[in-house]
């Protein structure tokens, strides 16, 4: 059941400049599916809306959720100053997540770009646990390759950097091509230009692609209609050609959305 909860902070560390890893003690960890997200509420009275952040990892035995986020704007900067032993309000678990059943017996390519990399880690672990073959291709700006070791510990990992300081110089698609990585299905998260490129790439190769979208959110639970994406067909809930990213998404079949 979705709920607002005051969660204990277990750990908060900076992985790379401005990129933070936060571990929270919460029963929500037991329900989390890769691709889902939580809303983290800043505490300052000037900032009322939750910040949507994807689940990077979940330990259901210990009840620990991990998120990795960029402290870019005012709210995430505030959140990055919280220390272990403090608590923070979260809303969760939100969204649909990647469909693990649809990929049984297939090989999944996990494509993560920039701050879209973190959710791929939990995806990778879940696929492995379900005995599904996968490989990760991660695209970074430069050699600040946060979470790289975490991926390498669990699956075949390929790297692209925009500045060429490591792996393939360029995007995740460049790495796919250069490093000859192939598979049947794509799970992807990253900036919009990357997702658009993946949509075309998948269409070209005849692959199925599931992509995670972002939009500014107010409620996170489908009530405000703030966070829609355009869709190719009329959505079953809204009855118009758009879907709520916070409920019907954030993960969509690439061919279903008009991005």
């Amino acid at each position, binding site marked *: 059941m979705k709920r607002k909860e005051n969660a204990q902070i277990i750990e908060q560390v900076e992985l790379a400049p401005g990129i933070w890893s936060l571990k929270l003690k919460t029963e929500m960890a037991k329900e989390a599916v890769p691709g889902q997200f939580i809303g983290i509420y800043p505490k300052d009275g000037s900032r*009322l*809306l939750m910040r949507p952040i994807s689940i990077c990892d979940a330990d259901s035995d210990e009840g620990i959720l991990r998120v990795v986020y960029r402290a870019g704007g005012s709210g995430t900067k505030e959140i990055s100053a919280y220390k272990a032993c403090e608590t923070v309000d979260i809303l969760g678990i939100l969204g649909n997540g990647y469909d693990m059943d649809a990929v049984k017996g297939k090989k999944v390519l996990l494509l993560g770009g920039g701050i879209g990399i973190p959710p791929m880690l939990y995806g990778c672990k879940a696929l492995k646990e379900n005995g599904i073959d996968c490989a990760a291709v991660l695209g970074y700006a430069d050699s600040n390759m946060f979470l790289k070791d975490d991926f390498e510990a669990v699956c075949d990992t390929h790297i692209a950097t925009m500045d060429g300081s490591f792996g393939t110089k360029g995007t995740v698609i460049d790495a796919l091509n250069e490093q000859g990585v192939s598979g049947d299905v794509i799970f992807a998260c990253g900036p919009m230009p990357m997702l658009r490129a993946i949509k075309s790439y998948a269409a070209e190769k005849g692959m199925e692609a599931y992509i995670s979208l972002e939009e*500014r959110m107010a409620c996170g639970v489908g009530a405000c209609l703030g966070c*829609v994406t355009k869709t190719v067909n009329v959505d079953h809930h809204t*009855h*118009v050609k758009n879907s709520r990213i916070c409920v019907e998404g954030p993960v969509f079949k690439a061919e279903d959305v008009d991005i």
Partner: protein
Amino acid sequence: MNTRVNIAGIELKNPVMTASGTFGSGMEYAEFADLNRLGAVVTKGVANVPWAGNPTPRVTEVYGGMLNAIGLQNPGVDVFMERDLPFLSKYDTRVIVNVCGHTVEEYTETVEKLNSTDVDLYEINLSCPNVKQGALAFGQDPKVLEETTRAIKSASKKPVIIKLSPNVTSIADMARAAEAGGADCISLINTLIGMKIDINRRKFVLANKTGGFSGPSVKPVAVRMVYDAAHAVKIPVIGMGGISNAEDALEFILAGATAISVGTANFHDPGTTIKVIEGIEEYMSKYGVADINELVGAVSD
């Protein structure tokens, strides 16, 4: 202790309602707040046909509040009657349907369809700042407001609440115009018109440029307007704008609101409505208030 209030002959178990557009059709927040405890659920605005709304970004945070330019996306009244009303009917709460339209005919068409349902009240949104034609235009000119109210009223078999825009010089004039047009009740405030600019991109944050401004930041304007409106008319007033807790709700009631709506605060804490109900009861016990109606408009110099 009596917390029941009466709006145009409809009794609410308590004065706490949800603000249109911030609570979906109730379904989305039923997991967080027991709808049976609410005085009423006010639904997202619904029109005669589905509306796709505005392009994104549609929402953004501002200091102590938010801007929205949803553009009244809705699935249309037919889907609403098939799907949402049956869901709401299961609960022991009043159902108020918020109605939007571009033209008087669109409003009356929707109202006429809903006349056959067990909806308790209509709230007519004559004040949405986010749609190009209609809506706000109806809500900023007293004469147009009065005529539109009269037309909708004559199409309606249920009591009609007219929702007023705060983006006017004299809210008292607008309140009087609604009353003159036959409104059974008025509700206010809808959102103020606001703008946010991204200084790094030198672009408007919202695709619609402007958005409706709501949340705790707008409360002082809302309380003042509810006070002015309540003193201008004899029909009951529903107050809203930035209510986040029981203290805020009581401020509106003392200013003259018979009932109040919780809006943006649901996004900050989905349990707000229930906390407001409990807080009002605590206040009444603390000060020995036997009937909440004693508090309506009870502010003095």
